[in-house]
């Protein structure tokens, strides 16, 4: 079958960086094509060229339906039948499902007003075609992330897309929603629509892919049918290292000394959406890595936000046996708690600031005399962390905006580690970062625990939780449904506690 989209010798140079170097890619109709590679391998850049956001350097060729084509801009790409669903979903929460699907091309009545009835009917037809049971008249803001994604897919289909690019679509979905999405992808492929699927999750890649193309450092290093690919081979192609080197032995550094004890923690004001978190009690030991697992909506993040003071709580928190009052993040920080938040861009970083300025924001006083910042000392300390955490950045003066996701995550971790908290909470520390960086983050957390830091790891990645934790706390619908020791915590038992 002739490819729908063919790319030959595509290069893209940014000032100082060659993001893509003579990449080839052939996308056939009805094929689920997984694009794999570490962060910074060039996947996003390639996607942006396919959708006309970036122009490729001269010399490459793009063919659509066998015709040489210059994709001028995203609107042109959509007209050619190429749609994209970004990780950060592009929906307007205050508008209805139908309004979102037909945004900027609303059907009009003879008098020039929006024909709401036809718009809703059309939207209903598109949703029905895809077996999506969402009322076109509901506000998108009230939908779950998985449902919003379905709305985006419906929008792409309503444009008669022939190629849909999905950028880590399952990254923020629950297990169930991910299964629904996977079925949807297969169904689209069966309708002869091509899918470009970007993912870091191994299970998912092998479940869904017809073909896998691996990018590394901006070059195509491999492309073959999924049936001819193995996990080990894929990882080796992606990182140029062996899997066994990536995940080290787990050594527990937990002591008997209870550092923090939480009693009857619950939300002061229940949120409209999400779990009614309450009655949460657990202990955290010195040097322990405590895993927190639960399905999306189980209330993991809420618990951490209460401990960190960014969400009002009832109940008691004691550190070193003394009850502490935590009503704001600065209270928590004063008690020696650090919080690596889930959302780097919204909560973790000031994107317009440099690596150095982001790094020192948590502990700027360390470099100050009479409130005047000693920038030389600040930069020196920052360079030390850039080196020891392997943060890839041209200099400490680079804006974090320009770093890849994995390196941004390391900056967030660095800014907290440098403060030397006694308790470090990390929420989804490896979401959206590649397998190499993941292993480095795990090694770092282990090292910090060995130095006596107590760490709470929240993750929806079960293998990660099991690999790294000394004990696992499982949350279900806002309550603790199990606390399992390392040797009792198997995939099955944890999953059972989370769902059963």
């Amino acid at each position, binding site marked *: 079958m002739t490819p729908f989209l063919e790319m030959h010798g595509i290069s893209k140079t940014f000032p100082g960086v060659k993001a893509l170097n003579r990449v080839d890619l052939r996308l056939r109709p009805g094929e689920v094509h997984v694009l794999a590679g570490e962060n910074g391998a060039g996947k996003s850049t390639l996607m942006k060229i396919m959708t006309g956001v970036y122009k490729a350097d001269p010399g490459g060729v793009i063919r659509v339906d066998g015709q040489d084509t210059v994709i001028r801009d995203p609107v042109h790409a959509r007209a050619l039948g190429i749609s994209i669903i970004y990780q950060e979903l592009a929906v307007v929460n205050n508008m209805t499902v139908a309004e979102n699907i037909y945004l900027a091309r609303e059907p009009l009545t003879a008098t020039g007003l929006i024909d709401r009835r036809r718009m809703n009917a059309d939207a209903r037809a598109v949703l029905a075609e895809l077996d999506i049971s969402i009322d076109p008249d509901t506000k998108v803001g009230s939908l779950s992330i998985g449902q919003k994604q379905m709305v985006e897919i419906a929008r792409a289909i309503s444009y008669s897309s022939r190629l849909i690019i999905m950028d880590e679509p399952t990254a923020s979905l629950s297990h169930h929603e991910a299964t629904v999405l996977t079925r949807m992808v297969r169904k689209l492929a069966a309708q002869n629509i091509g899918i470009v699927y970007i993912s870091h999750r191994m299970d998912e890649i092998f479940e869904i892919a017809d073909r896998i193309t691996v990018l590394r450092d901006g070059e195509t290093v491999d492309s073959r049918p999924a049936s001819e690919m193995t996990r080990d081979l894929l990882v080796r192609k992606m990182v140029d290292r062996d899997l066994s080197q990536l995940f080290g032995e787990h050594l527990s550094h937990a002591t008997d000394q209870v550092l923090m004890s939480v009693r009857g923690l619950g939300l002061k004001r229940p949120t409209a959406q999400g779990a009614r978190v309450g009655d949460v009690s657990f202990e955290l030991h010195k040097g322990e890595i405590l895993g927190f697992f639960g399905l999306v909506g189980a209330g993991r993040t809420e618990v951490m936000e209460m401990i960190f003071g*960014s969400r009002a709580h009832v109940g008691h928190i004691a550190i070193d046996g003394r009850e502490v009052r935590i009503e*704001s*993040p600065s209270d928590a920080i004063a008690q020696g708690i650090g919080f690596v938040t889930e959302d780097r861009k919204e909560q973790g*970083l000031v994107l317009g600031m440099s690596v150095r*300025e982001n790094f020192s924001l948590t502990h700027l006083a360390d470099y100050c005399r009479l409130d*005047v910042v000693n920038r030389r000392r600040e930069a020196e300390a920052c360079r030390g962390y850039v080196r020891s955490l392997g943060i890839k950045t041209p200099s400490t003066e680079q804006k974090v905006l320009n770093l890849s996701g994995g390196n941004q995550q390391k900056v967030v971790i660095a800014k907290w580690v440098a403060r030397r908290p006694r308790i470090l909470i990390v929420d989804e520390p490896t979401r959206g970062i590649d397998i190499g960086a993941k292993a480095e983050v795990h090694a770092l957390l282990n090292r910090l625990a060995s*130095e006596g830091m107590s760490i709470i790891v929240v993750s929806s990645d079960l293998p990660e939780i099991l690999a790294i934790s000394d004990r696992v706390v499982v949350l279900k619908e806002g309550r603790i449904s199990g606390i399992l020791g390392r040797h009792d915590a198997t995939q099955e038992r944890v999953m059972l506690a989370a769902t059963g």
Partner: protein
Amino acid sequence: MSVSGQKTTEATPASSSLWRELAQLRHVREINVLAAMLIVGALISFYTPYFLTTNNLMGVFRAFSLTAIMSIGMVMVIITGGIDLSVGSAMGLASLVTALCFDAGYGTGFSIAAGLGVGVTFGLVNGLLITAIGLPPFIATLGTLSIGRGLMYMITHGVPVTPDTPEVFSVLGQGYVGPVPVPVVIMLVLMVVFALVMRRTRFGRHVYATGGNEHAARLSGVKTGRVKLAVYVLSSTIASLAGIIGFSRYLSAEPASGFGSELDVIAAAAIGGASLAGGVGSVTGAVIGAALVGVIANGVVLLNINTYAQQAITGGVILIAVSLDVLRSKLTGGNG
């Protein structure tokens, strides 16, 4: 192995050429505005040599010094992502209260303190409305702007207040240090002080972080509420100082004094590179922005252009300056 243990001595490449340094300067916003001002100045002096006389230049400096002083406070507010529309009212009411104090027979020190007190009050009200109640800055300061104006008319009944003042007080607005008018000296001192505060201190860094990403700043331990309260108090207090200086110059507190000046002040900050979205801007940029507007105003007079055109020209300058800035960041940013 300890993570923080290793200090590094790795230095940046020592042999960065002069050319590279100069090329770097191109990215500094203040340099662009300064260059624009020099070009405009050169053009004006080409047509009228009087422009470059000490006499005229000092007059120009004094004319824009009050706007520039207020823009120093304003730019800090704008960097936090806020706006302070009430500076004109704070300025006017401060000059009025100072005049009334003199009128009631109080001394210079008390009268000035009372004027500054007006500014502190404005700032506290603005800051608390914004941080404690959660009003958008635009609305909060729009309200206090109106209240300030209303109070001025209620107090004066539309008649200027012209008290007797001691000789020493008029130094503030009318005096000279060598050839330099005192208001200009105050402007320069404030500029240097606050430029250092913003660039070198923890407070300054927290102001930028609050505007850059308030949520992340708060989660990093920055007390963003206090930072915001502080910038509004600074802005209003600096504006009230400008009001006192203005009163000292003319020794008459007009009921309409300061009206509309908030727009000139915001314009100066914007021309100087401050982004109303927050996180970006500088004190020196704002002062240079005010200077550019001042030089243009002077040129309009010297070149016998219709003075009504001055406002339109200033508007054009704002649009060109900010457009160039936006276009430039589009060109240099966006690699991913």
